[in-house]
């Protein structure tokens, strides 16, 4: 049979695909562990910053002292989109970008302008392909080596755009890690800060409010806020990275399983064809022998 050779080739290629996807799965789960460790060691820092803010927020007199809290009429919305640099990670990017498209369309329909900040090449490629205006695309450092400095840079860029009036509102569009098999695209408000209350009566009164503040509450608070925003950005980055690796691990596991299954089926077909061939040859020989005698 002529397709024996062809089958052998297919079996070989499917086997090597399985090998590659298995390797990618392993790499992804290793990276996942690394990111999780990073998130773990970052946790205390967030806790401390958050705690300090809660302690101090009741001491800041009014909104006038804290520009990052001031609401304005929204004309332009800035969105930070966090995606992956690479593909082959299941529906991780498409899920996020699908929701983003709908959200952006809604904003535009409401007569608002939308500006994008991108982290991760996939999101950037997607947005530019659809003719959206990307304000800034963060290339360095690559997502794999994303550290707190990167979060700081991005946070500062957004704060700058917010304070100089380029945007009136900033949003984070990223993927939140729910569990190993569940990732939720999330749209989170970033600026103006709404997650924290300021002014009299704000903050948890169970904290000991009687403490020294040097030089004064507003000065410390306004220094604290950018740090807080950086932790928010970094958290979003870590969540996205964790989701990406978990998603890729899952996709690659699926691919490996499918390839193994396919290989099994192909082998069965191949063996059957081979056996058929042998039987045919044997029949030929027997037939030939009986004709001679």
């Amino acid at each position: 049979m002529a397709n024996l050779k062809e089958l052998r080739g297919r079996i070989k290629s499917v086997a090597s695909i399985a090998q590659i996807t298995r390797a990618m799965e392993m790499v992804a789960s290793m990276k996942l562990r690394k990111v999780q460790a990073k998130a773990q060691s970052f946790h205390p820092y967030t806790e401390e910053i958050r705690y300090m803010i809660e302690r101090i927020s009741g001491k800041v007199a009014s909104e006038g002292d804290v520009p990052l809290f001031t609401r304005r009429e929204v004309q332009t919305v800035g969105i930070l989109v966090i995606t992956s640099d690479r593909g082959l990670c299941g529906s991780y990017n498409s899920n996020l970008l699908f929701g983003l498209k709908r959200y952006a369309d809604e904003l535009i329909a409401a007569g608002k302008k939308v500006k994008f900040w991108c982290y991760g090449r996939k999101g950037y490629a997607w947005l530019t392909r659809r003719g959206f205006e990307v304000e800034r695309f963060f290339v360095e450092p690559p997502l794999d080596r994303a550290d707190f400095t990167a979060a700081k840079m991005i946070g500062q860029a957004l704060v700058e755009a917010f304070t100089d009036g380029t945007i009136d509102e900033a949003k984070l569009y990223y993927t939140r890690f729910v569990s190993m098999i569940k990732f939720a695209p999330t749209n989170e408000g970033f600026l103006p800060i709404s997650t924290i209350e300021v002014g009299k009566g704000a903050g948890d009164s169970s904290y000991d409010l009687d403490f020294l503040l040097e030089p004064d509450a507003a000065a410390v608070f306004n220094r604290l806020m950018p740090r807080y925003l950086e932790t928010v950005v970094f958290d979003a980055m870590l969540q996205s990275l964790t989701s990406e690796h978990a998603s890729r691990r899952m996709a690659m596991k699926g691919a490996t399983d499918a390839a193994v299954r396919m290989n099994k089926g192909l082998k069965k077909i191949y063996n059957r064809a081979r056996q058929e061939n042998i039987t045919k040859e044997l029949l030929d020989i027997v037939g030939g022998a009986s004709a001679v005698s």
Partner: protein
Amino acid sequence: MAELHLRIVTPDRTIVDRKVAGVRFAGIDGSYGILPHHAPLMTAIAQAGTVQITELDGKEIDLFASDGFAQVQNNVLTLVCEAGEFAHEIDLERVKAAEQKAREKLAGLDRLSTEFVKAEAALRKALAREMLARKGSGSTTLS
């Protein structure tokens, strides 16, 4: 001997989490010395600051710590900073390169621009690190 619990937290790791005898650090409006049973306090740390820890046995250890906050509560001093490293961890070569870069940048900038302020901050940090590294290499107090 009275003890003070010191915690130094950075985004990467918790550097210090133990009892000490006293801590000195640079705040934005001057130098602070915190001894055990200090009154509750909250303040900001200088952009390029140094921290000096006095251990329970009287030894002193230097640290670089920048862009952060300090708070005292219930005899626990927490320093939350963006960067923090022990004097003996500082890579002098790298710091020198950073200093060089900052100086070059400063030379070509307008004094009133934000870039100038940023470069100046970078230079300050490099210089503070350099000072600590030099001091650290000569002393025997490091563990």
